[in-house]
């Protein structure tokens, strides 16, 4: 059953050093507030899982939070590279990153298997690519009925899943809508689940393409308005595309990156102050 708590408390209580942690959100509803809190609490040796490591993981990797990364696409969408990720892979800075690299379909099905309490998932893929040469978690499997050979990938069962949603109700049920991506499977595959939300409401309105995650599947709900910024929350605020562009020169430079994180993430109390901090100082303009 979800308890409505502060984000600091949720992260302190549910994320341990060395955990495998999945922060999901497919372009939409990326849990930046929670990521910053994990960084602020100086969690260490995390194996980060995410289909699309973008700015949120660039920040975490650059701060040395991650010892490993399980992923399928790492970039700054529409802008280019994520340079802290590249720096870690290309130069081992701030330290080397143990990588486990898949395709989107592979990652999605790994979460599905995890959510289903199955040890593996089956798909048509990987054959003829170089991914099986560098990733050990890919294996052939034969259909017992047709004899056809397919590909198996092992389940993902993160210690912690973190997602952002538009709303929770007072019982801790969580509603999200618009592009819901892989969040349902990420949450249901994990041992512990933290959800940040824009707001708590008395009752959910119907929303097109919406899903409701029942309270019983969630451990902690924390209210963090604009907690997905600079990504977006459908019907709440748009994606700040300019932020993504402005991140490029910051992320590109170890020193600039360090100063930015020091000032706007480590040096603030929480995400509300972070938002004020980058706005007041025109940090992303």
């Amino acid at each position, binding site marked *: 059953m979800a308890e409505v708590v502060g984000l600091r408390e949720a992260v302190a209580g549910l994320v341990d050093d060395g955990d495998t942690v999945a922060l999901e959100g*497919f*372009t*939409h509803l990326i849990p930046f507030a929670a990521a910053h809190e994990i960084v602020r609490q100086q969690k260490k040796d995390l194996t980060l899982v995410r*289909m*699309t490591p973008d700015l949120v993981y660039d920040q975490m990797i650059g701060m040395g939070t991650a010892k490993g990364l399980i*992923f*399928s*696409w*790492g*970039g700054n*969408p*529409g*802008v280019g*590279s994520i340079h802290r*990720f*590249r720096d870690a*892979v*290309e130069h081992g800075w701030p330290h080397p990153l143990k990588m486990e*690299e*898949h*395709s*989107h*379909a592979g990652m*999605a*099905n790994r*979460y*599905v298997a995890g959510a289903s309490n199955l040890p593996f998932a089956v*798909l*048509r*893929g*990987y*054959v*003829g*690519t*170089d*991914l099986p*040469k*560098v990733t050990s978690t890919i294996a052939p499997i034969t259909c017992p009925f047709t004899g*056809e*050979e*397919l590909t198996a990938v092992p389940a993902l069962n993160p210690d912690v899943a973190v997602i952002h949603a538009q709303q929770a109700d007072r019982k801790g049920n969580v509603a999200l809508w*618009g*592009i*819901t*991506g*892989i969040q*349902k*499977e990420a949450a249901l595959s994990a041992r512990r689940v933290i959800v940040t939300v824009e707001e708590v409401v008395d009752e959910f309105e119907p929303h*097109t*393409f919406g899903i409701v995650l029942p309270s019983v599947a969630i451990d902690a709900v924390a209210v963090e308005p604009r907690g997905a910024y600079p990504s*977006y929350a*459908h019907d709440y605020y*748009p*994606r*700040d*595309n*300019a932020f*993504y562009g402005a991140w490029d020169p910051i992320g590109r430079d170890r020193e600039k990156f360090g100063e930015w994180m020091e000032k706007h993430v480590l040096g603030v109390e929480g995400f509300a102050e972070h938002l004020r901090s980058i706005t007041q100082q025109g940090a992303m303009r």
Partner: protein
Amino acid sequence: MTDGSRRGYTADEMMTVAASRRLADRAVCFVGIGIPSQAANLARLTHAPGSVLIYESGTIGAKPEVLPLSIGDGELAEHADSVVSVPEIFNYWLQAGRVDVGFLGAAQIDRYGNLNTTVVGSYENPKVRLPGAGGAPEIAASAKEVFIVLRQSKRAFVEELAFVTSVGHAEGGDSRGKLGYTGGGPTVVITDLGILQPDPESKELTLVALHPGATVEEAKEATGWDLKVAGDLETTEPPKEAELRVLRDLKERTAAARKEKVG
């Protein structure tokens, strides 16, 4: 490099227009971000209003007013026929064989249309770490056919890929067929210089058309292998007024919207 601007359009515009023309009306198209997305939306706004655009974020029948910066922009969900989860879009739509055309870009391509979006250099010690696979390997595997769009250069059109991220025609001939994929693989590569198609037998990419002003020498110079050229080499019809107008309107709306949303 073709000086398209003297002709009233750029080489990139020619490439986008040429790519868009390939998309048949009512085709179900799995769209990669960037030029593929420009081309697919240009098609939708011109000759292919019945095309169904799918983005890997789960939007089916997306009708963006402005071009998305990412595959998951709110714009894509807003007017979509349906939005489904990521497992569903990959399993129930792509793998299920519901996608007629996969529209892909890449960092590197080889003579058989295999693609690299993973690394330049070695995997363990990369010179450039690229974003990785994303949805491309399974688009390449399962779409009935694949259109590839990228600018032609020796850095991109290489003798040997640093990493095979997505399979085209594998090692040529019928080698793709032996991998057991249900999709047909690449049928066309559209560049800023011309159009390449796999030879029916060998599956080696062959230059079949040049854009106006481009030359065979330029194309060969921009290719890292000994590029085959079709005997009956065609010249691409230049962008029509209407195509350019719609494309530029789309890009202007996009630029304006991106400024507007900022902050």
